[in-house]
């Protein structure tokens, strides 16, 4: 007797997301993480997967302006949310100042943790919590850089914070 095919009870939901300024409707299976939705379904591969367990920060994106690990949340939970990924930071071909500062300070090597580091940097600037060098180091410690570009990443933030204070 032919056994019946097993079908995991995974339903599909239609959600609306505004990604990098563009609103779109997407069909998502409820077991798909926000990270996998971006990478595997929407071809937004700039957001990286380094552990899939919220341990490395490579998947950091901005959700309603706040930095989050996109691997630790299911896409279906974010109906109506506004996301900014690394692909959405440059405007009309002009890099976001943090992107340019990462290049100028050589704040990366292999580049794999970089989108997460940049989103985390922008998130941290938005938070306005980092006042000292030690604050920066602590509050950026959720983003691992195995190439070890930390001191250069710190320079980007120091510069940005000084710039903001001078405003």
């Amino acid at each position, binding site marked *: 007797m032919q056994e019946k095919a097993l079908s995991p009870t995974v339903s599909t939901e239609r959600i609306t997301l505004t990604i990098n300024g563009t609103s779109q409707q997407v069909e998502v299976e409820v077991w798909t993480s926000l990270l996998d939705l971006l990478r595997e379904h929407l071809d937004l591969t700039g957001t990286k997967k380094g552990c899939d367990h919220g341990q490395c920060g490579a998947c950091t994106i901005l959700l309603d302006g706040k930095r989050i690990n996109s691997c630790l949340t299911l896409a279906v939970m974010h109906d109506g949310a506004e996301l900014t990924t690394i692909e959405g930071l440059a405007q009309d071909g002009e890099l976001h100042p943090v992107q340019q500062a990462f290049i100028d300070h050589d704040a990366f090597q*292999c580049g794999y943790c970089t989108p997460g580091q940049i989103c985390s940097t922008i998130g941290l600037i938005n938070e306005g919590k980092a006042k000292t060098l030690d604050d920066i180091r602590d509050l950026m410690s959720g983003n691992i850089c195995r190439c070890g570009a930390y*001191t250069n990443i710190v320079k980007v933030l120091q510069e940005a914070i000084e710039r903001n204070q001078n405003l």
Partner: protein
Amino acid sequence: MVTKQIGKPQNRVDGRDKVTGRARYAAEFSATDLAYGVVVSSAIAKGKIKEMDTSEALRVEGVLDIFTSENRPKLASYDSSFQDEDAPPGSPFRPLFNRDILFNMQPIALVVAETYELARYAASLVKVEYETEEHVTNFEAERTNAYEPEEYKSTPPPDPWGKPETALKEAEHRISEVYSHPSQHHNPMEMHASTAIWEGDGRITVYDKIQGVLNSQEYIMGVFGLAKEDVRVLSPFVGGAFGSGLRPQYQLFMAVMATLELKRSVRVVLTRPQMFSFGHRPKTVQQLSLGASADGTLEAVVHHAFAETSRFEDYSEDVIIWPGVLYKCENVKLSHKLVGLDVYTPLDMRAPGGTTGIFALECAIDELSYKVGMDPVEFRLKNYSVKDQNVNKPFSSKELQECYRQGAELFGWKNRNPQPRSMREGHNLIGWGVANGAWEATQKPSGAKAVLTKEGKLTVSSATADIGTGTYTIMSQIAAECMGLPIENVEFKLGDSSLPQSPLEGGSWTASTVGSAVKLVCEKLGEKLLELAQESDDSPFKEVSIEEVEFTDGQMRLKEDTSVAIPLTQLLKENQKDSVQVEAESKPADEQENYSPYSHSVVFVEVNVDEDLGTIKVTRVVSAVAGGRILNPKTAWSQILGGVVWGIGMALEEYSVMDHQYGRFINHDLAEYHVPVNADVHDVEVIFVDEEDQIVNPLGVKGLGEIGIVSVAPAIANAVYHATGKRVRDLPITLDKVM
């Protein structure tokens, strides 16, 4: 050479792609109808698969196939077909070859499904029954069976010289200690991945995470019997590797096998735990005995290393050559034995052997300097070597003394109180430590191609890699410099098996090897352009030789009379050429045989050790490097910085914990395997001392990927001693060991 580009702190030419997310890594290339493969890993370390039940998994809608040792396609059977460019002597692991289990987390099945989630779910339904055999993963227990391999992957231990035992016995001052570090894993941020794209008619294109596309291509040809023209391997960006991508890893095998069988594109990405299943820096235990005379002359070195390997390959690395490289000593004895365990074969990890051997040697030297009662810097300088005693050849250059001078000055070494526990700030004990090191500066043969178009765009290419090291950038600089073009007009291509041959990117030889090939191909291009100019009878270049012309500002011109010049674009147009193309193969010069080429470094470290809690913070590092000519101070600084961060990890954090009950690395994720994070890294200063070397290669560069790490861990260990008065000889130095 006029230097307009070389030596300039040029921003990375691939920087824009990396900060905008446009740079695509192996798992990020899409294909129509892409299927996803998830690897099932063995739960035991040794034995056999008795039975594997895939029926439930296969019934999941959307599962395309499950590959196991029972239904896999026919594969090559000879060891040589599976051996790659970096294979140690032995019999390489062959995925899904039979039911034998050789190590824990061995890949035993590949589940392929329509989506990643489905494949992952179905993989959880695969049931495996094992016939378990007793495994041995306990290094200490197995050390009594240590052996000398028939063939070393590394330099075989040099014969002893002088009378080491007698000299040691008669030495005024002696130390004899054991130094060890545990297994450590590379953990690049990008998990190993391969996307194999089915092109039809048995042809595939594979995006692989690899440090040399030709190694993957050869492997696929050998294992699956494909012709060269049927497999193209690409790897334009590599998300870190540090050695993990030297050998083709099993996700490549799996993706290619499934693609060939299903005639459909397949992606396989390993999980972070699976990143602990294919190669690591081997646990190594070193016995070091040193003797010195009353005046601090190093009289004897006896260095025995015991290092982990697998049961199927004899992996060894250059652990014991360092006394002969770093110090002058008349009486030396060295040995290197392997301890075979039921684990995967160890794998070169950033400065393999150097990081290990220099750690032990530099801690031992520091201990001896205290016994003699000399400043650790002075003691090292007293025993400074001017030749490599292992091979009895002079160094091609060695500006290590200048590293000491500049490094000590910037660090403020002269203000150090030599007494341990003598410096403190509140409840923090402050320690200052030093260590020096070296790394080989070799050149390998390499090819390169250059194409100049009539629009004045130059494309230079070679099948090398950029794993974050800056290859794209420095090669573009070299080519721009040689042809006198702005860097914006130059593109360097790499990571494509259809490009001219180049070795694996490793061993710190890429700047030297590929750089020399780029320089040579540009010189040939220059010659060809001159010939082109000479085709017309009235050319002002008619009677001149290549030595009399230079390429600058987009022109070819006479050195003697710079008004005699022709823009390269005009030269091509006048000769009705759309482009000019040349290829070249560069080889190391014979003269190199007479010298021993090494880069050198000194690292000064300050640590703060909390007296009550035992927590250790590396507050200041000065790394002074003699690395030949520096092509790009910006990317060079980053490489040394990375080495420092790795050294901090090695000294204080990194430890792959073997659970002997299961024979498995139990802390196999980034929460439990600690690597340095931002808060662990404080002030780091890098100095490059001037070092001219006309022997090492035509560019005078030495490579910087590994020299940055070698001296860091011992300098930290020595600083911890200076702070606390405790010698910790077993890495990592965790708080329990200094309390």
